[in-house]
Every structure is written in C-alpha cells, then in structure tokens.
C-alpha cells in the first residue's frame, strides 16, 4: 500500500467518523429535546392538573392489610388466630435523637432492655424511613398516657395492629411454624412471584411450618383505599375503597387433643411422634420435642432469646419429626422380612440357628446379635417377635444391597414423603451408586450386613418411618402424608377438600403381609419386645421396637446405659398400628436417648392409641413418661434382656 493511499484512507476514515459523530450529537440533542418537551408538557401545560392532584387533593393510596386466615384442627379447635392490639412505633428518619427519644418514651410506657435490643436489630435490618415497632401489646393505660404526650414525639405513633397468636404455643410450634417480619429474602421471593404489590402494608409472612407452606391461602388479598390527606399527611376523606379479602381458613387433619396427649406423654424426653390415618394419609398428630415459643419470633426475636434457643443442647428449633435423620434400628425388620419374601430369599418356615453372632464367609469379624448366646432356632415370625439380629444379617447379605434398595425405596425410604411442610429431609437409603458418589468407594458385603438391622449408612426421619408404617398397615397402598384436610374460603365459606388419592401401590402378596402383620401383633403380646406397654389394651396393637445407636461400640464391648453419658445413650424407636386387623391409626415414636423401644417409646404410642381408639385421657402425670431407669427399678427385672433388641 503506498503512503498516498494510506493517507487518503485515513482522511476518509476521519470524514466517516466525523459524520457518525454528528449523527451521535444529533441523537443526544433529540433525547434532550424529548425531555425538554416532556417537562414543558408536565410542568407548564398540565401543571394545573398535577397541582390539583398534589396540593388541593393530596391523594394517597393506602393499602388495607387483609386478616390472616385462621388455622383450625379437625374438630374446629383454634390453633392460630389473630387478635388486635396496640403497638408503639418509631420512624427513625423522622426522629432527631433516637436514643433520647426512646429514653423519654420509657417514662411513659414500659420499655424493657429486651425491647430495646429487638428494636436495634429491627433497625439494622430495615431502612430508616420504615416504621419500626418498639413495644407491642400496649395496655389501655399506656395508650392513654402516650396519646396525651404525643405532641412531644414527632415520628412516634401508636398503631392498631393484628397479632398472631398460637394458643397451643410450643406444642404446635413445629407443626404450624410462625410468621415473622418480611425480610429481604422474603421480599425477593415475593418480587419473583410478582406478588410484592399484594404485600404492601403487610409486615408479616409465614416463615416456617404450615404458616409458610400455605402462605398463599392464609395471606388474603390486600385492599386499596384512596384517601385525601391534609398537609400533615393525615387522612381526611376516603375517596374510594376496595376492601381487602381475608385469608382462607385452614382445617387440619391434626387432632389438637391427640397432639396435646402425645406431647405430654413424652415427659422429659426429646424426640418425635407422627400419627397417621393409614386409610388416607391424614396426619393426626405431629410432635417434635422440645418445642419453642413461636410468639418470640412473631414480634422479632431479641438476640438473647435467639442465642438461648439456638445454642441449647436440646436443639428446640430442630424439627425432629420432619428433619431429624436417625438410624432406623430394628424397626426396619418387618420391611426387610417383606423384602425377603418378595424376592423369595426366605420362606416363612425356613429357620436358622442363631449362635448369637453372624460372620461373613472368609472373615472372622463377628456381627453380634443383641442377645449374647443367640436365640436358638429362629424362623421369620420369631425373628420379628424377638427381634433377632443374626437372622437379618444373613437375610440382607443373601438379598444383596441392590434388592434391598429397590424394595425399601418403594416404601418411600430415602425419599421425601412430600408432606405439606417445607424443609423435609430425605433420610438415606444407601446403594452402590450412592457410596461410589459419596465416598468414591465400591460397596462391600460388610456394608450390607448392618443395613439389614437398620444401622450402617441408612438413615430415616420419623415422618418417613410413619408413612412407611402406614403404608404397611394399609396393605401396601401408600398415601402422601398431609396435614391440611380442607381450606375454607373466607368469602363464600365454601369448603374445598384437598383431595388425597393413593400415591402408590406396592402390590404385596396378601400371604406375606399376613405373616408380617401377625408377627408384629405378637411383638406386643407376652414374649414380644413390647409386651409390657400394651398390657391390658382392649384392642390389638401391631408394632416393632427399635434401638438406634448413637455411638458405635468396639468389638466385644458391652452396652451399659448407666456408664454412658446421657446424650450418648441409644435412641428408642417404636413403630405401630392398631387395631392390628383393621388399622385406624399408625403411630411412630422416637425417644432420643430413651434406650429401649419397648420401655420408652411404646408406652407413648399406647397413650396416643388409647385416646384415639377409646377416647381415654391419661392421668395427668404419665407413668411411662418417667425415665426408663425408674421403670426398671420398679419392676425389679433386668429389662435389658427382655426389651433390648
């Protein structure tokens, strides 16, 4: 390329660029011109119109917050409702000296250090122009005292608000959850669903439990009020009003009385209980112990209370029924027996000789039975009644992990049940694939042995075990467990039943079912592991005890509850349904560190069944609720032999 051409190109390029630049300048002028025209239009031509809107009629569009829907139990007992009360609120941006103002206010109304801390926390979470609560539930006298002095406190006002109340407090905390102030995360979610506008004016939203899951039903539709306000911003005249629509009422399948009895039956034990109607998956009681006071959260929890709850060794905030994952222990045996029959690994009459331990061929490692010396000759029926470990070690190995996985997953193990609560955990049903993914290791036969008695890698949630037990009781036809039965429309009072169709059918052989159910019924009869707890019951309970190890034991070591730290003691399980021939209720109980399923967990289930089937209310101080050691001392027999499995 000659220098001449290059120069020429350069000049043409400059010319082109200049041309484009002029077009750009023209574009900029056009944009500024549009703005100018718009300003002239709004501020000169339409000024009177907007002046009227702004000055003479200052129209403010106010949201009217709807009443939150009620939550009732299956018999109409109120579990969550609203009551109106007065709150004292401060808008930080309108207050000159916040600290001095609060100190001043404290001379008129009672303001505790707790209130101040909570206010500080609220302030940190919100914008300064938002109105924040310093005190809730003012007494009439406090309202009057403040009203007389209000002129001294610009930016401070009294508001009438609806409060959420949970009459059963901590007994339903894990079930209902609670509402709390809308935070950034909630706001983001609302914006995503395009429902932020419907929450204008609303301060609270369901945070956990049913309050969260059914937020859309409970919240209702916000009304709009167009009001004329004076120069101070006070409403002087209502121009138009679209009334709010209250949230719908939830009618649960829970029986509040049953829930109450179950709670009390636990005494001092931590744990969980889930009771299900096997015929339709309705959850009748849903307990996680200990609970917590949900009202702490409604007003915004203060740091100290939060710390106390969060750091408590009892973990009251943990929803054990929904999220607690434990080894199932021997409660898995009836399901394993069904699997053995299904895959034709064992016939009902086929018996093994139990020397008290199991060894894999080519290994000297002894997998011990809970009973030293073994149970002698054991067939399938007996293996369930006396909870023989050796039987199931062998059965599991012969069946293989793939079959175990396939069969147990049909009962819902290792999967979420799909109950109407957020945050469910799925437990763990181990498989070859899982182990490869999790540990990058192949599956060993030794891993299968402990899966046979519900130890090893396998984990279940109380809810999962309850759903599986209900499915077993219902001859293999399973339902998704659910807590809400009906939704009552707040306007039309129409009741919408939440249809619950069978979710799956594990096509089980009636003969297999019959054997396993009969064996489970024998568990509660003399000679079975839960004989004591069902003594004297006018109906037949089918059940299975279980013990979940909290800490592992060395080869040859003997379990001795008295020598072990209380929180390292075994967890006690009991799964059951009754009446055994025509089940109306399935109950699963987990008593943390309770030791033996028969001694601790079964009596709790018995009380629940007594009330549900007979209407019997237990005497206030439950006998079986006393720690296991007390029973042992009272009965004077070495319970370890009879009840440990």
């Amino acid at each position, binding site marked *: 390329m000659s220098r001449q051409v290059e120069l020429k190109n350069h000049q043409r390029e400059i010319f082109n660029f200049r041309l484009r630049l002029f077009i750009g300048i023209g574009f*900029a002028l056009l944009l500024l011109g549009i703005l100018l025209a718009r300003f002239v239009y709004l501020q*000169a031509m339409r000024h009177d119109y907007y002046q009227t*809107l702004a000055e003479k009629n200052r129209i403010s569009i106010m949201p009217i917050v709807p009443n939150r829907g009620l939550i009732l139990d299956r018999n109409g007992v109120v579990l969550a409702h609203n009551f109106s009360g007065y709150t004292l609120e401060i808008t930080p*941006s309108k207050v000159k000296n916040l600290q001095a103002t609060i100190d001043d206010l404290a001379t008129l109304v009672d303001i505790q250090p707790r209130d101040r801390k909570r206010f500080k926390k609220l302030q940190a979470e919100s914008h300064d122009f938002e109105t924040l609560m310093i005190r809730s539930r003012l007494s009439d006298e406090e309202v009057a005292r403040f009203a007389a002095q209000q002129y001294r406190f610009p930016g401070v006002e009294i508001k009438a608000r609806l409060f959420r109340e949970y009459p059963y407090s901590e007994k339903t905390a894990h079930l209902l959850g609670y509402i709390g102030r809308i935070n950034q995360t909630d706001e983001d979610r609302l914006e995503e669903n395009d429902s932020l506008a*419907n929450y204008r004016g609303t301060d609270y939203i369901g945070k956990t439990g049913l309050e969260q899951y059914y937020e859309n039903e409970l919240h209702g539709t916000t009304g709009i009020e167009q009001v004329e306000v004076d120069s101070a911003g006070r409403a002087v005249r209502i121009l138009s009003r679209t009334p709010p629509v209250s949230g719908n009422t939830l009618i649960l399948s829970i029986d509040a009385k049953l829930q109450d009895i179950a709670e009390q039956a636990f005494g001092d034990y931590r744990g969980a209980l889930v009771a299900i109607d096997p015929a339709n998956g309705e959850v009748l009681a849903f307990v996680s112990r200990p609970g917590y006071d949900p009202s702490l959260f409604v007003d915004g929890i203060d740091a100290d209370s939060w710390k106390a709850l969060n750091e408590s060794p009892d973990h009251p905030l943990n929803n054990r029924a929904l999220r607690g994952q434990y080894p199932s222990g021997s409660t898995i045996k009836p399901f394993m027996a069904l699997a053995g029959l299904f895959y034709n690994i064992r016939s009902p009459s086929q018996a093994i000789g139990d020397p008290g331990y199991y060894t894999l061929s080519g290994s000297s490692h002894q997998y011990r039975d809970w009973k030293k010396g073994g149970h002698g000759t054991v067939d399938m029926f007996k293996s369930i009644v006396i909870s023989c470990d050796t039987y199931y070690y062998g059965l599991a190995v012969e069946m293989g992990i793939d079959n175990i996985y396939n069969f147990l997953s049909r009962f819902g193990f290792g999967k979420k049940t799909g109950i109407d609560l957020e945050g469910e955990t799925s437990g763990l049903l181990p498989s070859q694939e899982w182990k490869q993914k999790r540990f990058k290791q192949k599956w060993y036969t030794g891993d299968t042995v402990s899966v046979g008695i519900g130890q090893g890698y396998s984990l279940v949630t109380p809810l999962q075990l309850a759903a599986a037990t209900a499915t077993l009781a219902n001859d293999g036809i399973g339902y998704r467990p659910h807590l809400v039965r009906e939704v009552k429309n707040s306007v039309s009072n129409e009741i919408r039943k939440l249809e619950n169709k069978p979710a799956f059918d594990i096509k089980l052989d009636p003969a297999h079912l019959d054997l396993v159910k009969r064996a489970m019924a024998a568990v509660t009869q003399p000679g079975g592991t839960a004989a004591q707890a069902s003594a004297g019951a006018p109906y037949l309970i089918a059940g299975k005890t279980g013990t979940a190890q909290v800490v592992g034991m060395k080869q040859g070591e003997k379990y001795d509850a008295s020598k072990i730290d209380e929180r390292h003691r075994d967890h006690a399980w009991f799964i059951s349904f009754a009446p055994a021939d025509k089940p109306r209720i399935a109950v699963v109980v987990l008593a943390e560190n309770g030791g033996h399923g028969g001694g601790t967990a079964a009596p709790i289930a018995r009380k629940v069944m007594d009330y549900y089937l007979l209407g019997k209310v237990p005497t206030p101080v439950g006998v079986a609720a006393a720690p296991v050691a007390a029973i042992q001392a009272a009965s004077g027999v070495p319970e370890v032999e009879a009840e440990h499995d």
Partner: protein
Amino acid sequence: MTRRQIWQRIIAHLDLPLLAGMGMLMAASLLTLYSASDHNFDRVLAQGANILVALCCLWVVANLPLHYLMRTAVPIYVLGMLLLIGVALFGEISHGARRWLNVGVATIQPSELMKIGVPLMMAWYFEKHEAALTIKNYIVAALLLLLPVALIARQPDLGTALLISASGFYVLFLAGLSWRVMGGLFVAGIASAPLMWSMMHDYQRHRIEMLFDPSQDALGKGYHTIQGMIAVGSGGILGKGYLNGTQTHLDFLPERTTDFIFAVYSEEFGLVGNLILLALYAFVISRGFVITANASTYFTRLMAGSITLTFVTYAFVNMGMVSGILPIVGVPLPLVSYGGTSMLTLLLGFGMLMSIQTHKKLVKS
C-alpha cells in the same frame, strides 16, 4: 518545586471545563440530597465522601497515558467476564436477582465493571484491526458485546443489560458499522417484537403494559410512575421552592435519594430548574463531544464517543423514567443520585475522557 508548580502538576491532566460542568451537577446533587433525605446531613456527607473517592480515582485515570489505558482493556474485560460467570454460578441473590458476588471481603456487582469494560474492550479490538476492517471484525466485536450482555440479562438485570448494549452499540456505530446492517437489525427487531412478547414472562409484559396505563398497578410499580409524574408536574414553572416539595416530604415518593432524586429536584425547582439541569448536562455532553472530535487515535475516538453517548443515555433514561415516558428500570441520575458505585463508574469514564484530551499531544506522530 514551587507551590505553583505543584498545582500545575496536579491539574495538568484534568480537563477544567469538563470538571466545572461535573462539579455543578455534583453541587446540585448535594443540595437536592439534603432535601430528599429530610434534612439528613449524614447522607449529604456520605455522598460528599463518595464524590471525593471517585474524584481521586478520576485523577489517577486521567494521569494514565493512553497506551496504559489501552493495556487495561483486555485484563478488565477478562476479569469482568470471569466475575460474571462467577455470579452466574455462585452469586448471591438479592432483590430477586443474582447480581452480587461475595469475594470474602465485600460483595461486588461485576455488571458495574462491565459498563466500562465492554466499550473499552471493543474500542481496543477495533484499534488492533484498524488497518483493514472487514465484516468479520464487526461480528467479533458484536460477540464481545453480546456475551456479557447475555450473562447480565440472565441475572436478570435487564436495565443494565440494555445500557451496556447501548454503550457497545455506540462503539459499533462510531466504528462505522454499515448502514445496511443497522437497518437490517432494526427491521429484524421490529419484526421479532411479537415473538419476544409471546416469549416474555407475565411480569415483564405487565411492566410494559403498565407504562401505557400506570393505574393498572396502583400499589406496585405504577404507583412510582404516578407519584413521579405528580411530583414533576406539580412543580410548575418556578417550583415549590427548596425544601418545600410536598410530594417529597409526605413520603409519596419512593427511593427519593437514589433513582427518584430527579422528582425531588423537579418538584422544588420547577421547569426553570429543569432547564438549568438540562443545560448543565448539555454542557458536559458537548465537552465530551469536543474531546471526541479532537481525539487523535481510533481507540480514543471510539472510547470518548461511547462514554459521552452513554452518559446522555443514562441521563435520558432516568429523567424519562421519573417523568413517565420510560418504564421503571433501576438507573440512577448520573452524577446526582446518591450512591458510591455509580459515581465511581461515571468518574472513571470521565477520567478516561480527560486522559484522552490531555495526552493526545504526546501520541500524535
């Protein structure tokens, strides 16, 4: 060195007319902020600090010779892309979108970096291939633009994606993208509008419908539009006077220190005030165009032109949104709205303009 020499050294690479225009807009910012924040002097001080920090950065950038500036293009762009990918994979969700990346010490918003990174990279690319530009180069440049824009639009942050698209388009336009291609794109855009409409989320359609009839969503975003128009319109010719804006002080206006600060200004200073503000913007913009016209290299011409045109666009979008002719997108009023990040991004851009203006004598061969 005498004091005079030191002073000379400090201002050597600053463009004083541009600085004066910016300074007046910033003064308007502090003034309006005091009113918008209900006489909260802390807010004003905080904005003052934002301005000081941003001015220091501006000074540093203005003193960088052009070849340094060019050398930053690729690293900034690559860093920005990595961060955007990081956001897509591990970003924090806030305000319904995944825009922030937590890097341990702080959370950062990489899309903000790309407001400069994208035009810088494109201008650098065109400069590299200046000798013989073919259609292929335009396609590559367009890809350099579309990749980050797609990532940002996915966050979703449609407002920022559109603004970065605009700044990238300005580079393409100034680099001489053929009229035929632009015409084709325009026609294709119009033709695909019905298709886009059918692919949009309900809430996105809702936002567009609302623009034509804000009363449809009187509790949501339409409320902001209505209140913005009332504040501007009721200001009239002379305004209600400083600190006397009723709409402002009766809590009708949302985000009145940030995105809606123009409504406060407009209500209190009226049409006259708006004319002054437009004149200040016009002054800054015209200075930008002068620098662009005088720029000595291909790279600097493209960069200066894009920065200036982008600035115009920001101002237009914000004031258009507040006065109800554009949908509500989160775009601050440049140099006036409260906020440290946008101030910094803008002043980095202006720093480049000043560098372009004051270093050109050295580059000229």
